[in-house]
């Protein structure tokens, strides 16, 4: 008995498939034209740039490749890429690398001196590593060279000092910050008002607020902090706690991670998450927290200020208009410590002279006040950047107007945090950071999931770090 072949398409069905395939093929041919026109952000007015007493065309004809991660703040810059080409005659090729792979790919290029990427969006904790290997050029010479930089126009000091410090090592700047963030409290103003609560001023207040809001039966949790294991995830929140509890990463030249302050900070972290956070938080990174908050299931969280863009997205969020912002709560020592995270652009040391000049022109263009504005409130698309790199821009009326609907205190909280709460030694700035960050992330997670007690986890981390540093 021959089995009826279930895979043979009957004729009419086959014809339909072919027709649809042809239609799709035609659409595919048309697609590039659609894409190109979407990209031509036609505000090609270069007057604000030509004001600078710099010959923008001194590297004309060069070609550079820039690696970035998929993120709206880079997408906006990529959309303006044609303006840079029109201004300088330098061809820029952007490559979007998944965030989990960009460091590795950049390091592969830098360490083998293949000069594939002229610059890439760089994690500030990696500069000590890059500098020890002499993979990137110090930028002080570029900043001082009047042929390359019009100091008055570029106004390097206008960029947030915290970020400039984060992008420097041993006194010299190695990258220019392009986009950054601060960690702030984000809370449900309506829920707080209903219970007569105010944004927490101290860590104890923070827990008290969470306890008041916490209502797991109705799927509302008091707080959430990143739990996902990773140097840029749970090891992004913990250092603030560590510093607020008075911890110090160094004892002389030695890296110490299991001091009594460290244990206390980790205990607080574990306690807070166990009592008042959704159980899934141990796997959550900040997009997950922002999603949960936007669905109304969180009372408060501490994370990047730029997460606000998710919260005010009318397509997803249910809490628009109900959000409040505040600085980090104070620790027992009265300190507030926020992150100094920023994406900066360094210069690959393996480039040719002409390419280095072209790269520097790119960097100054991207970090200039005009471009920052054009990727923010002047941008024609829906996503407008909030992580601008200059104090003057944050204080400008355009920026304030753009952000006024996000929530009360948004600009004040973020700006004050940036100006007063930053600590450049917020995480240990050593070349071995990648391994140390990874080890600490593992230890924190072990404590968070209850696998080990805080002290035990940190002691183990210390042993492994000692081994790493000994080599």
């Amino acid at each position, binding site marked *: 008995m021959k089995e009826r072949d279930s895979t043979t398409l009957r004729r009419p069905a086959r014809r339909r498939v072919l027709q649809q395939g042809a239609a799709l093929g035609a659409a595919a041919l048309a697609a590039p034209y659609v894409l190109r026109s979407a990209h031509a952000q036609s505000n090609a007015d270069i007057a604000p740039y030509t004001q600078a007493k710099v010959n923008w065309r001194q590297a004309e004809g060069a070609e550079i490749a820039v690696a970035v991660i998929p993120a709206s703040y880079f997408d906006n810059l990529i959309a303006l890429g044609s303006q840079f080409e029109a201004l300088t005659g330098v061809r820029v090729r952007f490559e979007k690398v998944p965030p989990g792979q960009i460091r590795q790919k950049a390091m592969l290029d830098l*360490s083998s001196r293949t000069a594939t990427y002229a610059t890439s969006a760089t994690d500030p904790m990696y500069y000590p590593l890059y500098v020890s290997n002499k993979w990137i050029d110090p930028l002080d010479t570029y900043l001082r060279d009047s042929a390359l930089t019009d100091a008055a126009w570029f106004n390097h000091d206008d960029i947030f000092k915290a970020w400039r410090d984060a992008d420097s090592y041993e006194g010299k700047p190695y990258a220019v910050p392009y986009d950054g963030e601060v960690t702030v409290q984000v809370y449900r103003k309506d829920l707080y008002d209903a219970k007569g609560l105010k944004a927490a001023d101290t860590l104890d207040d923070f827990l008290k607020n969470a306890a008041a809001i916490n209502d797991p039966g109705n799927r509302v949790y008091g707080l959430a902090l990143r739990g996902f294991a990773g140097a840029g995830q749970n090891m992004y929140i913990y250092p603030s706690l560590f510093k607020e509890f008075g911890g110090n990463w160094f004892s002389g030249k030695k890296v110490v991670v299991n001091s009594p302050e460290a244990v206390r900070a980790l205990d607080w972290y574990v306690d807070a998450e166990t009592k008042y956070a*959704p159980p899934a938080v141990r796997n959550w990174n900040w997009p997950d927290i922002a999603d949960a908050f936007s669905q109304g299931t969180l009372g408060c969280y501490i994370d990047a200020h730029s997460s606000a863009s998710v919260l005010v997205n009318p397509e997803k969020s249910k809490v628009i208009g109900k959000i409040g912002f505040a600085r980090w709560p104070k620790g027992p020592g009265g300190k507030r410590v926020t992150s100094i995270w920023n994406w900066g652009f360094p210069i690959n040391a393996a480039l040719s002279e002409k390419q280095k000049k072209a790269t520097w022109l790119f960097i100054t263009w991207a970090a200039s006040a005009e471009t920052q504005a054009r990727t923010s409130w002047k941008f024609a698309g829906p996503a407008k950047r909030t992580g601008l790199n200059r104090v003057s821009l944050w204080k400008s009326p355009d920026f304030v107007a753009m952000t006024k609907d996000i929530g009360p205190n948004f600009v004040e909280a973020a700006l004050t945090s940036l100006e007063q709460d930053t600590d450049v030694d917020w995480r240990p700035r050593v070349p071995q950071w990648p391994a140390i960050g990874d080890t600490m992330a593992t230890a924190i997670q072990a404590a968070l*999931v209850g*696998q080990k007690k805080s002290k035990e986890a940190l002691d183990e981390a210390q042993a492994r770090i000692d081994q790493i540093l000994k080599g």
Partner: protein
Amino acid sequence: MVRDQHQPGSHNVFPAVINTRSSRKSVSDRAFALLLFLPALVTLIVTTSAPLVYLAWTSAMRIDLSMPWRSGFAGVDNYVKMGADPRFWNSLWLTLVYTASTVVLQVTLGLSLALLVLRIPRGQAALRIAAILPLVLAPVVVGLFWRTLVLSPDVGLVDVVTRALGLGSHNWLGDPQLALISVIAIHTWQWTPFAFLVILASLSSLPPDVFEAARIDRANAWQRFRHITLPLIRPALVIVVIMRTMIALSAFAAIFAATGGGPGTATEILNLYAYRTSFSELNLGYGASLAVVLLAITLAVSLVMFRVRRAR
């Protein structure tokens, strides 16, 4: 029509050749054979010898990108260090557990399901099609989907089911013990269909008359299975075991996407440990030596399995 002259199970990997020619023609024979064989061999030699040499050389060096001032020749130091490294032994143990459980599960499940499916009057085609779906998914996508859609606490599929059954909500990927079980489940989910399809095909081609004879002989179902069915599908089972073992030893993308080797080191099989050492900790020398050890283990296991296949 008689087709097969081989004795059951007597397969060499390299069987004896046809020898029907006189020695006068054997030179052109060899030339022809080499003409067929060399392009592939040369390609492989070109593409694999450089990495092999690089791997071996790097494993004998100290190359730590985060401490470039310490680089230099290390000889066998990396290997000595490995012996004293508890994280290495942990990863070895996990590799063993992971490989053994996934292979055993795949074969057992595949076999039981194949036996089951043969009894069903209709719907075999639908099952075969459903079975293909996991096989064609990219492992990295499988890991990602399971992490987010299936295993996330609260909203994930598994959690919804366990809560409905009253078993409560758990952190399937965050709890160290559960995490290992979860990644084993993911791998088994994706690859059991392979075992299922191979064994099903093997079972459906078995001659029915043998079973008739057994039934007349009053052998019960279990005896029929053990003494007739099992030996007849043994070659299929062996192939499945060999291939699945090799895949399990080099499994990377799915676990990496699902847990990254965590929580902590709870799912850090040797493959992942080597990756993390090379690319997260930037200790390239040690990472290379771990990769060499993994290669040696895989080779050893495969050789053993091929001997088993050849013996009998």
